[in-house]
């Protein structure tokens, strides 16, 4: 595999056809027809859930601009992109959403061939890392200057330079992770915590006590997305570790880390045992199986939209080292092989307009990367989520983590270390220190293989990041 996968599960977006949506379809008696062709062999099991959004159709059309994206892959989101968000753009755009693997293959292949059909690519910071390294992307510094009035978050422009001079992408949209709770759970809040405190001062210990109270009265109703496509590893990397230890890789096995794992193993007693099949938390929240959940904003928005009166959104808790959180930035780039760079630039200009950013937020619940007030006419659920996101980054003790940087192909292996540690410590109840010692070696070999330097919240530096 000569290309980078950059975290194949680092999917911002919900899976195209979620399991329960399929279940609903099955209930309507259409299952046999709809599903018959979905999967037939190895490799088909997980991917059909995510595909379908963007089957590459004819793309050498000449006058239509091809927009290839790892974002907005779910069918509904892709349709909103095509039908609503892109509606006012002058010119034909063919929006194709693709899994990270095929996305990488296509860009790399077009670069190798020296000519391509893809005009604009959309992806996460991590998706572009290897392209940036290989110099496959056009420098967009001049476009950023032209679009100065957009007020891009300076930090995000900095990210797009990957430590160099070339601006590889223009910030497009952002998301993060928050918590959502059912209002029925509020009566079980521990002493000293009220609804206002949830927004500003909830700690991990209080969260565990709260879930314990709910458990005593109603059963295990805490929820984490620990299923096949769930983002539990992001909880560990961007929330648990930073909040308890102030780092990730450099603090992987220290005493603080042991405390974090002990907290998690304790809190897991109150987690719904079906969590190992949860990919998105919106569905268990809607069904009432889960009352308190942590997940990606795009994977919670479905529940908040549907029942804004019954659910509340709030920031993740804080630990001894602060409120660790992980913003997710997506950007727009132009490959050097783009057939019509001018058209590509005008599409980026269009997508970063304030009104289009507002439409994006309203339709697919990804937040603007530009300055300015949020539009006032947001649906109630989106509003609630937006407030929790803003509350997170505005918290005084907020401690920002980046998605893993520079791992390339090793993204999945990196996540596996955290998943395996989780399974061994939390599910199988093995000795925390022993497991961490063992997994620290695996973690170091992943970082060595990728030759990755440390990233926030670990102290950034030269050379391969050393596990501590």
């Amino acid at each position: 595999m000569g290309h980078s996968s950059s975290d194949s599960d680092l999917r911002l977006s919900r899976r195209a056809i979620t399991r329960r949506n399929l279940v609903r379809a099955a209930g309507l008696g259409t299952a046999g027809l709809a599903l018959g062709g979905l999967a037939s062999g190895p490799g088909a099991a997980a991917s059909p859930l995510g595909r379908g959004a963007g089957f590459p159709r004819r793309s050498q059309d000449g006058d239509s601009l091809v927009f290839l994206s790892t974002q907005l892959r779910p069918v509904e989101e892709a349709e909103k992109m095509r039908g609503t968000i892109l509606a006012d753009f002058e010119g034909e755009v063919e929006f194709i959403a693709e899994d990270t693997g095929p996305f990488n293959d296509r860009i790399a292949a077009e670069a190798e061939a020296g000519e391509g059909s893809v005009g604009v690519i959309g992806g996460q910071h991590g998706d572009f890392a290897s392209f940036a390294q290989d110099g496959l992307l056009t420098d967009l510094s001049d476009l950023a200057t032209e679009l100065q009035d957009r007020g891009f978050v300076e930090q995000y422009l900095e990210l797009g330079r990957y430590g160099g001079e070339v601006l590889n992408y223009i910030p497009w949209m952002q998301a993060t992770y928050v918590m959502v709770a059912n209002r029925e759970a509020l009566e079980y809040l521990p002493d000293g915590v009220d609804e206002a405190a949830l927004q500003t001062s909830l700690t991990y210990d209080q969260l565990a006590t709260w879930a314990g109270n709910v458990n005593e009265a109603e059963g295990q109703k805490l929820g984490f997305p620990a299923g096949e496509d769930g983002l539990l590893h992001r909880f560990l990397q961007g929330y648990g570790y930073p909040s308890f230890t102030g780092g990730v890789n450099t603090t992987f096995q220290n005493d603080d880390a042991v405390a974090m794992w002990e907290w998690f193993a304790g809190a897991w007693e109150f987690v719904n045992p079906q969590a190992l099949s949860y990919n998105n938390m919106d569905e268990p929240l809607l069904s009432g199986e889960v009352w308190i959940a942590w997940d990606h904003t795009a994977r919670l928005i479905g529940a908040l939209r549907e029942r804004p009166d019954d659910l509340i959104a709030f920031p993740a808790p804080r630990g001894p080292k602060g409120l660790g959180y992980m913003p997710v930035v997506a950007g727009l780039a132009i490959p050097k092989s783009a057939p019509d760079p001018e058209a590509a630039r005008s599409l980026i200009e269009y997508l970063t307009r304030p009104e289009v950013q507002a439409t994006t937020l309203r339709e697919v619940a990804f937040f603007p990367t530009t300055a300015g007030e949020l539009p006032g006419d947001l649906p109630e659920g989106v509003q609630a989520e937006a407030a929790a996101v803003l509350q997170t980054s505005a918290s005084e003790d907020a401690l920002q983590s980046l998605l893993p940087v520079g791992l390339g192909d090793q993204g999945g292996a990196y996540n596996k270390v955290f998943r395996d540690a989780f399974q061994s410590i939390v599910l199988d109840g093995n000795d925390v220190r022993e497991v961490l010692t063992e997994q620290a070696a695996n973690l170091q070999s992943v970082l060595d293989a990728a030759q990755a330097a440390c990233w926030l919240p670990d102290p950034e530096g030269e050379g391969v990041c050393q596990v501590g």
Partner: protein
Amino acid sequence: MNRQRFGWAPYALLLPSLAYLAVFFAAPMVQAFGLAFQDDGGNWSLASWRAMFTDAQFREALVTTLILIVIIIPVQFALALAMALVLNAKPRWPGLWLYLYAIPLGVSELAAGILWFAVFTQQGWLNSILEGLGLLDRPFIFLDYENQGWLILTIVLAEAWRATSIIMIILVAGLQGIPRDYVEAADVFGATFGQKVRRVILPLLRPSIQVALILRTILAFQAFAVVIALAGQGMTVLSAEAYRWYSDYRDPHVAAAYAGFILLLSVFSTVLFLWLLPVRQEQAT
């Protein structure tokens, strides 16, 4: 005589399917084995196999795969045999029965897993029905990773539902090849139904049983969509690990090692069945 009459024609007719097998089965298989014994730089190495054997998930995946096979295959055989005997007894509307039994064959593995997930999930059909009947106060969690027994039971049910009919069809074909005379002769001697099945039908069915067993076991080693749909990360099997190593961890070498290991297990089980259920030459045709 025959050879002279047909000349090269039979071989020419075999050629397309041989070419197909060579291109789409043999070549990828050789390549996969090659991958498993190479490292990233293309050097020969056992590193992938070592990575597989020391992988935290390997043991669980192997044990679960074997448990599932040991439970599923006998259950499916009993069911398939019963279904085949029903069909062979020439019931009224034989076509209807056949189609009913064969419906799951048309449903993909993943879809079957999702259907059964809808049955067993916390707010699923089974819990709704049990609650509706007043048998449960609050939903029972069947898909609980702490209770591997339930997980295995649901997977066995889903697999039995999905893949029993393929065995049934092989057995029905076999049953139809058994001359009526034998069964009638047994009738004349006053054999009971059980005696007829045990002494006449099953022995004559041996070639079909052997084929069905081999086929089904190989398929069972490959099954994983049902497991992922029902158990998520709560349970793992060998083929699921092969898939993850390839698509998530992006290491085709370890994935190939897993695939090669599955192939070795399949070959071993095939040889085992051939040895346990020898078919005499005159039966084999």
